[in-house]
């Protein structure tokens, strides 16, 4: 059952513009419309994420997963002191005065499964942050919202809303939200991110689970890049993921209320079959079945392609991923 705190925390950030969801490695947060992902590293176990407005405000998340065998909960005081130490060293190098302090964590951050501590620091920038250990996902998370040292632009309010909206795991443990720029999709939680291409008019997220692979591709300015070309022909030229290694038959269908191409088939003849012995040598059932859903959304002027290779035993998740991929709000 959801607590009142949890329900409050799920409310979108009440900023001037409508909030935009960001989803990465199991984290989800609501940020102002003009904020976007600007940096990331690591993986689900440990990593870093930065989202900002490209002017002066931004949010940073750092996380590390505790070993499953750890008997004791991590000491947040010590972790926070280590973090402050790193900040002080950087400030000394830059010859900046730095003030750090522990504060009561914002109420919006509190959850039943979290041990939380709040902090603030002021140097060349001002930050409102929190460090917590989540018992559900076993991650120690340091999150901070940064802005001008004077706190202009309602930094405190923005920080409170963003910190409150940040969730380190979703309601549905079987699915994970991936949302960046204009792309919003949900991927089975068993799949991990193995590659990405984040270009100006083209986004690709590629995932893998054992031998199975899954990719979501998005092209912007579809009206110009595709023009009147048939979608299947256009995709064979422009796709950079699983479609390039597949042979398939196309059928008509529907996705997100748009006419869609439903592709199904298998590995393409020749080189793509080279991966089968590799997968067998790793004691994996080879992923030889191909399926994909592609559609053009006129409202967002984008082309979407969800595609994947699966084993003959596993169910097809491509259709469900396509169903969970939002193309227009």
């Amino acid at each position, binding site marked *: 059952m959801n607590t009142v705190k949890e329900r409050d925390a799920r409310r979108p950030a009440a900023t001037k513009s409508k909030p935009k969801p960001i989803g990465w490695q199991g984290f989800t947060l609501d940020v102002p419309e*003009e904020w976007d992902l600007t940096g990331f590293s690591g993986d689900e176990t440990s990593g870093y994420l930065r989202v900002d407005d490209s002017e002066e405000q931004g949010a940073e998340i750092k996380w590390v997963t505790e070993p499953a065998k750890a008997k004791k909960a991590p000491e947040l005081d010590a972790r926070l002191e280590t973090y402050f130490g790193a900040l002080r060293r950087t400030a000394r190098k830059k010859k900046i005065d730095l003030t750090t302090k522990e504060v009561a964590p914002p109420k919006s951050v509190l959850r039943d499964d979290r041990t939380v501590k709040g902090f603030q620091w002021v140097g060349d920038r001002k930050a409102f942050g929190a460090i917590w250990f989540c018992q559900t996902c076993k991650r120690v998370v340091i999150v901070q919202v940064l802005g001008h040292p004077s706190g202009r632009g309602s930094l405190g309010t923005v920080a409170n809303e963003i910190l409150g909206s940040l969730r380190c795991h979703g309601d549905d443990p079987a699915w994970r939200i991936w949302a960046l720029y204009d792309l919003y999709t949900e991927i089975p939680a068993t799949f991990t991110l193995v590659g990405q291409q984040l270009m100006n008019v083209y986004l690709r997220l590629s995932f893998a689970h054992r031998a199975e692979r899954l990719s979501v591709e998005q092209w912007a300015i579809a009206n110009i890049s595709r023009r009147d070309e048939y979608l299947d022909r256009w995709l064979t030229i422009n796709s950079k993921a699983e479609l390039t290694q597949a042979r398939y038959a196309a059928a008509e269908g529907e996705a997100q209320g748009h006419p869609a191409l439903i592709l199904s088939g298998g590995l393409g003849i020749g080189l793509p079959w080279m991966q089968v012995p590799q997968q067998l040598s790793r004691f994996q059932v080879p992923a030889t079945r191909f399926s994909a859903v592609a559609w053009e959304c006129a409202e967002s002027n984008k082309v979407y392609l969800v595609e994947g290779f699966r084993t003959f035993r596993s169910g097809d998740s491509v259709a469900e991923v396509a169903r969970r991929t939002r193309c227009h709000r």
Partner: protein
Amino acid sequence: MIVQFLKERITGGKPKVSRAEVLASKPLRNPKVPWDREAVRPDTPPVALLRIPRRSDRFGNAVARIFKLPDYRKLELDEIGSDVWEMCDGANSVEAITKKVVERYKLNRRQAETSVTAYLRMLAQRQLVILKRGTGTATRKSKKA
């Protein structure tokens, strides 16, 4: 002094321009470059076709005479490039142009901003546009300044 000298050598002696200043600046087409919208292929919408005059100094004239160069060379812009070019009238700021591109092509703001600024930089390097310094009212930062 040495540090300043080295800095200038590294940065090319160019002043640093902030993002806010770039967004507030107003690109203006080079008046010496005549252009028109023309349909290059029958099935495509008309795009901007620029006629860039060749160098007309003594050296340029000599080279043109030897190699029989035409008086101008044509440069065909793509569809979005043509729209941006048309908006470079000295009245629209870079931010206004970005907004129009976002609306017209339903692009993400940051994606559009990166593309438009890179494109304008390329045009400026080729001396096809100049960037007039704006009044600084375009962005939140400059509003507060």
